[in-house]
């Protein structure tokens, strides 16, 4: 009850609500303009909110996150270009519906079910975070190491077509995280005499470079800078008709929350899964799927927005980010001296409540801004990229500079931008590298602590890997590695064929 009151108190805090609103407006634009991403905006925001209080920073970021994920659907429906990867599936039915002159109807379904998905995800976060934290309290250093490793392997497997490339990206990220003064022994490592590197690679310029500047170069490289915008004519859409999909949306939202909680899976996977489930369970859609079925929009939007709450579960309870945006949010915590993990909710309940309140208020703004601004936004979506991209490049430079007020970080941003561009170009996802840069320090110190503790025991291996949780995590890591091995896949395929 006290918890509920605490969360409700944020609804009365004008400053908090205004900051969520500011973030929501930013999220609406960033998410709906193809070429700008929520992760890019959040990375830029980390640098801006550097000197703010944690609550203020979280309020703004939650607004961007919640509304940004939804608003990818606006451009998906109006111009057939998803504003965010998680809205790819929305284009399948959203754009055909818009082409039929029913863009407003498509937007209404997207708004309502994004709202429902978001609220569902945050309720699950609220209910599950504490029990998971209690389990996580039993974790040893080796468990933390394995958990982070599991996160990296799943990110590696889900964000790129080639598993090896995903893991290479993660390995390079770990390598970057090793640069600087070692936290255990206090010696400078891999700094090569550069004094600016002694404090390590600052996460903010790395993120701004990998997600911001590299994205600019990728958009320029793609050359596709314009698109045709569908006209939005307001028409009456009956709410009772829209809410007919409520039952199914609960199922898609549950699916989205679970997928979101898996490190690295994220919105696109959730939306695809929900869409395929919708095709399976909805026997008589309004029109066939792919031709403007509202059921497809419901599935995609419920699932990808429910991912937000899901992705925050491992972040807050285990310090393992569920996706790129939560990896950036993790850096916000570190920047403000907070340590997410099993003790987080107990030690900083006000931050947990601020996140929940930010999510719920953000979802309300999603509803308001969605209905008010989404139909009017078509002109902004059509801003030529030749104007937009240089402006974003300027923001990237400022973003990198502002975290430490030094030009060295701008250089780092440029380096990571170029690196990120080439990685994308060659099919290496930048997400595993980001997670690895964030988690590397924690993995290193826990790994050495675990080895050190185990070496003082009689039986080294049973001390290191003998506990049930450790064994379970080991099995999970091995299964992830094996299930992505081409040889294992070939054997499984052969066995399946023989059975048939």
């Amino acid at each position, binding site marked *: 009850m006290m918890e509920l009151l605490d969360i409700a108190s944020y609804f009365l805090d004008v400053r908090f609500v205004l900051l969520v609103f500011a973030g929501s407006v930013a999220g609406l634009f960033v998410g709906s303009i193809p070429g700008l991403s929520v992760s890019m905006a959040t990375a830029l925001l980390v640098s801006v909110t550097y000197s703010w209080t944690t609550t203020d920073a979280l309020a703004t970021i939650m607004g961007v996150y919640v509304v940004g994920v939804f608003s990818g659907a606006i451009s998906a429906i109006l111009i057939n270009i998803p504003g965010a990867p998680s809205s790819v599936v929305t284009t399948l039915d959203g754009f055909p519906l818009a082409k039929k002159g029913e863009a407003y109807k498509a937007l209404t379904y997207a708004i309502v079910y994004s709202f429902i998905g978001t609220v569902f995800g945050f309720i699950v976060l609220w209910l599950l975070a504490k029990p998971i934290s209690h389990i996580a309290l039993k974790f040893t250093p080796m468990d933390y190491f394995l958990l982070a490793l599991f996160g990296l392997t799943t990110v590696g497997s889900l964000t790129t077509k080639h598993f090896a490339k995903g893991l290479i990206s993660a390995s390079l990220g770990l*390598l970057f995280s090793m640069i600087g003064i070692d936290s255990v022994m206090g010696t400078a490592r891999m700094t090569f005499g550069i004094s600016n590197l002694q404090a390590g690679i600052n996460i903010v310029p790395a993120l701004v470079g990998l997600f911001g500047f590299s994205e600019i170069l990728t958009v320029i490289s793609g050359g596709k800078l314009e698109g045709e915008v569908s006209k939005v004519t307001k028409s009456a859409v009956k709410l009772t008709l829209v809410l007919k999909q409520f039952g199914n949306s609960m199922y898609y939202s549950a699916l989205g929350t679970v997928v979101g909680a898996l490190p690295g899976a994220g919105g696109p996977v959730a939306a695809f899964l929900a869409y395929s489930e919708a095709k399976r369970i909805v026997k008589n859609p309004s029109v066939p799927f792919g031709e403007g079925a509202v059921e497809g929009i419901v599935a995609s939007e419920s699932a990808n927005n429910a991912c937000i709450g899901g992705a925050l579960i491992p972040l807050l309870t285990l310090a393992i980010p569920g996706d790129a945006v939560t990896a950036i949010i993790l850096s916000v915590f570190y920047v403000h001296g907070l340590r997410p993990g099993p003790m987080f909710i107990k030690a900083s309940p006000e931050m947990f409540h601020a996140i929940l309140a930010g999510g719920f208020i953000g979802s309300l703004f999603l509803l308001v801004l969605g209905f008010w601004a989404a139909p009017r936004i078509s002109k902004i979506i059509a801003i030529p990229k030749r104007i937009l991209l240089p402006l974003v490049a*300027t923001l990237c430079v400022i973003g990198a500079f502002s975290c430490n007020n030094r030009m060295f970080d701008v250089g780092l941003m440029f380096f990571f931008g170029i690196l990120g561009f080439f990685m994308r170009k060659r099919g290496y996802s930048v997400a595993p590298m980001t997670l690895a840069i964030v988690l590397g320090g924690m993995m290193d110190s826990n790994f050495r602590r675990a080895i050190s503790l185990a070496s003082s025991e009689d039986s080294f291996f049973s001390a290191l890997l003998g506990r049930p949780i450790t064994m379970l995590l080991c099995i999970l890591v091995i299964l992830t590695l094996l299930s992505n091995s081409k040889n294992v896949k070939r054997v499984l395929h052969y066995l399946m064929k023989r059975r048939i």
Partner: protein
Amino acid sequence: MKKIALINSTRVEGFVFLILSLVLFIYSMILHRLSNTEWKMSPYLFPLVISIFLAFLSLSLLKEGKQLKKEIDREEGVGSNWKDVIYIAIFTLVYCILIGVITFIPATSLFLLVSFWYLGERKRYLILLISLLFPVILYVLFGMLLHVMLP
């Protein structure tokens, strides 16, 4: 021709990562020896583990490059407008250097002017308006409201 180039680049990547892992391995071994600590506490233990992991991955990439002879796929949605990418990267690099020399507002105006023009915007009044106004707005916003002292 395209096919051969793609096969080779995957193998080249594998080879580059293999060399990187070897360099990292040798670096970790040498510096560990110089640090006079036990392996369990050594700052070079984790880089050593990464180097071994990276070596396996690069070998798998080399193997994959060999197998790619049959299946060639273009990379995820990225085209190859190289000239524009190189120019914009150079503009940004020069911009980063210029900030330290001629300060933020003139450097940003110059960068925006050149970039807009290069990317194909031809409305002169629009270019001038945004190039002159945007840096000032940013300077005021960051400098006065967010307390970020821009150069």
